[in-house]
């Protein structure tokens, strides 16, 4: 208790200096937390991907489609429980900056394969009955104020024209990590429209989503699917949904790496600032440490006092930083709209923030501790502050 009192009073001795150092740590911890959350959001799609689903696409590129006829052949493969399909739509809602993922999906089967998209049964039925019906995620609905019954117009880029939809359902995520920012509409609507305006593009599927009878059969089924369509006009590349999502992330890997580096750089900078604060503090108190040593206190006592003080300053900064990370991440998530599928602070991020704060305290106190423990008493006593 005595030592704790001493540590806290020492930490508050130069309030402006300690306050500014705490502020610096708060900024660093918040910045670190937000940058980590951005990285996590980048991987959210892959993280939310199921292990018991495969995605099959054209082996040349996603730009090329697959024939609708593959659907029945895939369904007949041993280990396949269900098959659905989808096309990336890539439309624009009002302006280009309103980005959100839009998919034309096979309405009767798609949501059976995605139990994490929780749609009230009545809404799902309404969607399946209405060719122009659409189901949107809760976050997307909240962002743009979509309500059931609203008409939504998208300007097609891959599929030209103005496309009219009616919101028939809003889905929620079964888990926090579920992407609730997507827009689904009927693949039949897309196909029928293509039949009229671009007959060559009819009966084309962007990706097949394959539900497995067991996650352990993923490799075997993927190989069988690809073997089935080998030497055809449209060969397939089949992989787990997670691998498929990671394929997208890898395209922007350099950005993710840069964000990671910046997040650790921020911690390194504040570590240097904190080390400077502790070095100044110990230099000013060298006479006190020499006095303590003269009275019989050992290097361990001095180290505990210095480490303790660094821990108090760093801990205070970390607590405030972590406390502020949540509302700031929420604001950041709202500001970025539906750019990220899910923008939430993971528990691992908080643990990392705490670990960084502990590391800052330890590194900052290390050299000052060594100096205080090593100082000769007579030299320290001569150092009148």
């Amino acid at each position, binding site marked *: 208790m*005595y030592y704790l*009192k*001493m540590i806290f*009073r*020492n930490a508050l*001795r130069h309030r402006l200096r300690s306050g500014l150092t705490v502020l610096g740590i708060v900024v660093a911890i918040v910045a670190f937390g937000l940058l980590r959350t951005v990285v996590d959001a980048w991987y959210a799609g892959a993280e939310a991907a199921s292990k018991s689903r495969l995605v099959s696409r054209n082996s040349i590129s996603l730009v090329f489609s697959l024939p609708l006829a593959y659907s029945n052949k895939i369904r007949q493969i041993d280990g396949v429980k269900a098959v659905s399909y989808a096309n990336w739509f890539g439309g624009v809602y009002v302006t280009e900056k309103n980005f959100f993922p839009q998919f034309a999906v096979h309405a009767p089967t798609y949501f059976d394969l995605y139990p994490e998209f929780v749609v009230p049964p009545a809404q799902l039925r309404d969607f399946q009955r209405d060719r122009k019906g659409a189901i949107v995620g809760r976050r997307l609905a909240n962002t743009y104020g979509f309500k059931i019954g609203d008409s939504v117009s998208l300007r097609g880029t891959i599929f030209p024209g103005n496309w009219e939809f009616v919101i028939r359902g809003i889905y929620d995520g079964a888990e926090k990590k579920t992407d609730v920012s997507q827009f689904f509409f009927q693949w039949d609507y897309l196909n029928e429209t293509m039949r009229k305006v671009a007959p060559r593009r009819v009966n084309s599927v962007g990706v097949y989503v394959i539900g497995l009878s067991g996650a352990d059969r993923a490799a075997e089924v993927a190989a069988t699917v690809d073997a089935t369509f080998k030497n055809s006009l449209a060969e397939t590349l089949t992989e787990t949904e997670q691998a498929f999502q990671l394929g997208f992330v890898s395209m922007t890997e350099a950005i993710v790496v840069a964000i990671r580096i910046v997040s650790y750089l921020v911690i390194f900078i504040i570590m240097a600032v904190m080390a400077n604060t502790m070095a100044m503090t110990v230099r000013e108190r060298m*006479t*006190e440490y020499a*006095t*303590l*040593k*003269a*009275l*019989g*206190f*050992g290097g361990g006592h001095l180290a505990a006092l210095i480490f303790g003080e660094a821990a108090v300053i760093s801990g205070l900064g970390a607590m405030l930083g972590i406390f502020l990370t949540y509302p700031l991440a929420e604001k950041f998530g709202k500001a970025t709209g539906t750019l990220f599928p899910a923008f939430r602070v993971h528990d691992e991020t908080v643990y990392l923030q705490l670990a960084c704060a502990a590391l800052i305290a330890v590194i900052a106190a290390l050299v000052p501790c060594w100096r205080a423990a090593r100082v*000769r*008493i*007579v030299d320290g*006593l001569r150092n*009148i502050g």
Partner: protein
Amino acid sequence: MKQNTQAVVEIRNLAKAYHRGGQVVPVLTDITLDIAAGDYVALMGPSGSGKSTLLNLIAGIDKPDAGSLRVGGVDIVTLDEADLAAWRARNVGFIFQFYNLMPVLTAFENVELPLLLTDLSAREREEHVTAALAMVGLSDRIEHYPSELSGGQQQRVAIARAIITDPTILVADEPTGDLDRASAEDVLNLIDRLNRELGKTIIMVTHDPHAAAKARSIRQLDKGELAK
């Protein structure tokens, strides 16, 4: 209280030199001195005569280059850092020129500080501290921080801290050097009382002949040697 003739400090052929820029500067040369238990010795001499160095050696906060130094029967030259620290905690009370109190601790907590290295309970520590502060006349200042006390009061807190563990010797380095005449007189009287009433062995370094006159004996140092 009567002085015990048995030597509590036994110094034989003690030598100490400093190394500055490759040069060896002798500070103490062949010092031999006995200080009896209960004695009150003033070490005097011009600046650079080695009196503070001798005090530091006796207090165990510096190491000699040669000679032997026994305090309370313990050859402190042979002790390692950890043992020396433990020995100081039990056997030496320090009174510094600039008091060297911890600014973040109250008078009570400053006096309590050396007792943290003992096995005393919190209640026992409180009793000891209260008694020590009463002895130096600061019972009404126990919750005051050093910055709220005058120089004389701070030095009295430092004296209470020095005697709290009932050490074998008290070492005082210019204890009145930072005080006005009245406060210096109070502090000297207090140190004198510690010697006469409690039988404390006191070794004091001073420039001030008035302060030295309070001691039972005065030893003069000049150029690192004790005057005969």
